């Protein structure tokens, strides 16, 4: 159990919450077949992999709840291979994996499970550029960090919890890094790190699970 004193103990360095949007841009590649999809995945930049694999969670491209990413939806709806779609849907995105690890897995799975068929609607590869801004919210202690995670826009949580880590700017999510550096709470940091954001389709469920993990450690 973490004491009230620890929750209120000032951090050495406050946590400044930023947030980001990712305006999409056409990557100039489209695929009608799985072979073309493989070729496209090889050619696009990491931000494109981020956009199609992780962005659906907290962005507003509604994808069906039973599929976790854009590739899976396209394979199911256009190539009509539900089994392959399910495998692609459940690709692992947990720490310390980056978009490059995900790209490698995608290529391996698609190459090993080659399916024929031509889509009537192609897969359009989209990339993006992050537009990052300060939210003005700052946590000065652990208690404040928890309060802000519970209430801030998911755009901010996604930036700190997913984007920077999967793009390789950090090896862990920002929350775990801050908790460990300022409070030495490795158990709590690891607990947050164990969440795989790729397997969520509802951003609020991700927030709930972050809070639940924090509560589990704090009240254990």
């Amino acid at each position: 159990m973490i004491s009230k004193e620890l929750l209120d103990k000032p951090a050495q360095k406050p946590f400044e919450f930023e947030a980001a949007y990712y305006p999409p841009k056409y990557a100039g590649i489209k695929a009608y077949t799985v072979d073309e999809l493989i070729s496209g995945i090889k050619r696009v930049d990491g931000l494109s992999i981020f956009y199609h694999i992780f962005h659906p969670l907290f962005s507003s491209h509604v994808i069906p709840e039973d599929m976790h990413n854009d590739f899976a939806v396209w394979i199911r709806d256009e190539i009509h291979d539900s089994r392959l779609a399910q495998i692609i849907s459940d690709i692992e995105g947990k720490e310390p994996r980056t978009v490059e690890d995900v790209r490698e897995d995608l290529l391996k799975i698609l190459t090993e499970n080659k399916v024929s068929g031509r889509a009537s609607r192609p897969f359009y590869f989209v990339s993006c550029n992050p537009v990052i801004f300060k939210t003005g919210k700052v946590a000065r202690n652990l208690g404040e960090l928890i309060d802000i995670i519970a209430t801030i826009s998911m755009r901010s949580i996604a930036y700190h919890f997913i984007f920077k880590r999967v793009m390789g700017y950090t090896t862990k999510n920002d929350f775990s890094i801050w908790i460990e550096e300022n409070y030495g709470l490795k158990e709590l940091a690891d607990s947050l790190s164990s969440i795989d954001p790729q397997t969520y389709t509802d951003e609020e469920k991700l927030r709930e699970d972050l809070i639940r993990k924090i509560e589990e450690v704090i009240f254990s």
Partner: protein
Amino acid sequence: MIEKYAEIIGEDELDSIVKIAEKLKGVSVLHVNSTPSGGGVAEILSKLVPLMRELGIETDWKVIRGDKDFFTVTKSFHNSLQNGFGELPKGAFEIYNKWQEINGNELDLDYDIIFIHDPQPAGLIKFRKKGKWIWRCHIDISNPYEPVWNFLKQYVQQYDSIIISSPVFGRDDLIKPQYIVPPSIDPLSIKNRPIPEITVRRILYKFDVDPDRPIITQVSRFDRAKDPLGVIKTYKLVKRHTDVQLVYVGSPASDDPEGEIVYNETVQAAGSDKDIKLLMLPPNSDLEINAFQRGATIVMQKSIKEGFGLTVSEALWKEKPVIGGNTGGIPLQVINNVTGYLVTTPEEAAHYTLYLLRNTNIRERLGKNGKEHVRKNFLITRELRDYLMVASLTGSQQTPT
């Protein structure tokens, strides 16, 4: 004005827009298009420009001028870019260039960020003095008439970035970034704001539509691309099984000589069925369109070819499930079994219409999802934020801290 949107999009979203706008403080922005009123571009600019100013960004809007010959040329450009074929007036490229020259010399283009909307003023890039230039293309350029595209491309290539409405319209032959910014609807406009039930019923009565019986509604021009004959066929297939009315709300298009022919074909296909209403409303019948969409049980947009098809978002915003053609920007709005159903044939459309007419709970679920989908994706505040971001990104690249 902008704070009125907070109730709809939430304070967080509005706050984000304010924060992103701060990146453009001190930057001058100019929008240039070809008409001050009428049409979707003028409509969006009439909202966006005041909102950008309200956010503290020095923003102007200028309109190019031209004679009848020029606008005949640009109309032929527009059609041939979207349809993939075309007939250009004699001396089209010379006429186009002449008016770029005239406008380029007359307009003050001394701004930091310039948005040029659509092909009509695209050639103004020749007169760039400073700043970053963004070409905002509102039309489908995925399958253009090559001679026109090749002519236009010499200008488009000179821009710093390009905005298209959907990845479907993306071009593989452009080097500059092609940002994807879908169009949007204004939830506070007369066409989309909540209206009382009595207004809906009164308008339906006025056009001899029974508000107490199921209604399929399609709002679109009498244009083959909108498949009015397919809509009639769909209705007739459904009618074999259940009581239903069809309301097709169109408006006369003086610039579309084919409109009358298609209308007459549709009248003939409808026959003497009193439950089919083929309406021709005057332009700006926003309240009536609002009422017909709200009064509908199911909204259809059974297009065979479509630009973006914002009538879909208008209907979804009113919590109506939409059966839409699997083309253009419709699949961005209609997500199968989430906000409606994508179809290609009248038989498919009839199947899902009947399914929805039989299942109130499914209609309600799709309707609620549809409203949320539009709230997140297709409201004017999202388009405003996207413009700010593209301006910011075009002005400077960022990396995470």
